[in-house]
């Protein structure tokens, strides 16, 4: 015990580690079950707090970092997600953990272009109408450029929503877009409300994935679709080694150089490794009550899109 009181720094440092472990387990008894934050073990309450802080700190550089880390490929992944969704005008979408609005904007663009094609087709059929009748039909359709489609962006983090709203203003998105502060584990929406529920690169940060999936099931209409875009597991051993090397060696460095924040990006790559692989996530989605659950690997499993239906 005398050794523990020794002022020598090196010894104290080692003791500190043992003490921390002891305190950790005492805290655990008080503050809830244990879970992980990247490769660390923390309580659920601590994890939520730490993740909130991560996104608060990265919010402003989120988009720049995404482009740098994935060399712009994340845009393609998100495009594929929205194409898979294939929304028609009139669809009501809930984008959870939608923070900076990437999915919401793509949804709006997609629906707008579908709507335009619809209108063009309608016009072709009206070629025998008079000029006056055609211009009158323009007036009606102008107010429905989105065709009653709506997207609600829900995120737990105020900073991310702030960045999203600024982006929307900057890019000129206003119609059919709503921003709501909410927790994926306890959504502030009524049952059977939405046609589609998406969560892109968000479910990994949720502390209780099972609760988030249950909430997704609850708020979807019968016939509604659940879509999840998330980093997943690479089974090819060579690619996996290269991916690990890139993730652990390069990404935190990019985080430090571009965003001045090593630790958040260290958390990001660790959290990807901790996330359940494709089959396990599929089972969890089925457990929540979804049917026809399936997944599609993108880039050999670096990213996967899981899909399920509420029937």
């Amino acid at each position: 015990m005398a050794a523990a009181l020794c002022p020598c720094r090196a010894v104290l440092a080692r003791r500190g580690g043992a003490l921390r472990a002891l305190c950790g387990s005492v805290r655990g008894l008080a503050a809830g079950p244990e879970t992980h934050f990247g490769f660390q073990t923390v309580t659920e309450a601590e994890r939520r707090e730490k993740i909130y802080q991560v996104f608060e700190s990265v919010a402003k550089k989120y988009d720049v970092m995404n482009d740098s880390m994935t060399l712009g490929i994340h845009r393609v992944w998100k495009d594929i997600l929205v194409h898979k969704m294939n929304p028609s005008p009139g669809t009501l979408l809930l984008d959870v953990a939608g923070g900076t609005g990437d999915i919401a904007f793509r949804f709006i663009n997609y629906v707008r272009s579908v709507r335009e094609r619809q209108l063009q087709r309608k016009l072709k059929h009206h070629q025998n109408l008079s000029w006056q009748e055609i211009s009158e039909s323009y007036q009606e359709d102008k107010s429905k450029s989105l065709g009653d489609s709506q997207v609600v962006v829900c995120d737990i983090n105020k900073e991310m929503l702030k960045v999203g709203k600024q982006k929307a203003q900057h890019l000129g998105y206003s119609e059919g877009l709503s921003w709501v502060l909410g927790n994926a584990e306890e959504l502030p929406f009524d049952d059977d409300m939405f046609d589609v529920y998406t969560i892109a690169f968000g479910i990994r940060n949720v502390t209780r994935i099972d609760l988030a999936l249950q909430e997704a099931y609850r708020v979807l209409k019968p016939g509604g679709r659940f879509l999840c875009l998330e980093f997943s597991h690479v089974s090819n051993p060579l690619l996996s080694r290269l991916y690990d090397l890139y993730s652990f060696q390069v990404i935190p460095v990019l985080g430090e150089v571009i965003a001045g924040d090593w630790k958040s990006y260290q958390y990001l790559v660790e959290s990807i490794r901790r996330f359940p692989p494709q089959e396990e996530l599929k089972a969890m989605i089925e457990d929540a009550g979804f049917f026809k659950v399936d997944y599609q690997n993108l880039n050999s499993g670096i990213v996967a899109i899981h899909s399920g239906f509420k029937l």
Partner: protein
Amino acid sequence: RGGEEEKEEEEEEEEGCYRLYPGHIPTSPLQKALLAAGSAFMALYDPYRHDMVAVLGETTGCLALPNLRDKMKHHPEGYRILQERPRIRLSTLDMARLRGLPDGTLGREYVRFLEDNKVSPDTRMPPKFVDDEELAYVIQRYREVHDLMHTLLGMPTNMLGEVVVKWFEAIQTGLPMCVLGAAFGPVRLSTRKLQVLATELVPWAIRSGRNASCILNVYYEQRWEQPVESLREEIGIFPPP
């Protein structure tokens, strides 16, 4: 005792991931290389990223820092600094007392410098990527003493002044970051300033740097009352042009 020993062994197994000081982020050689390259680029691209200059210093200092530490160890005042580990921070400085000192003293001129240039000693980045606890202190000391360098050299915090101080520091410390800063800093200066720099300021900075004893071996906190000119003479810095 057995239990404690076991725990110690556990800690030692994790030695690679263990933090040597608060804020320490252990990095692999590849990461250090990438950081050095990335921070060098970013520091030039965006001169307001002072954190990148700091990171560059840490990742490239593996030869210069032990050198500096040894210089400190073999000097009585430097040795004391390494033992006592003084920190220059607003919380440790008695600003009122320093302001009250007569004009021309180190303390008075230092406070004047801070106020004129609207800087504070608390904005210095703590080290993250230095893999030795003592060397981390050495680089921290170097950062905290930087403002005193400005005071002793009589240089303001504009681009020109910073470049001059970097030349001086490059000669004194041999830190690659200082050398790079001294070499590339002038890129952003106008031709007129470059002329002044090249003809007067840099030669003076080099002469002073070579002549002066190691600036990290001065216990500045015990010399607030000493007149700046006397301290300059003592260290070996020539009067500024």
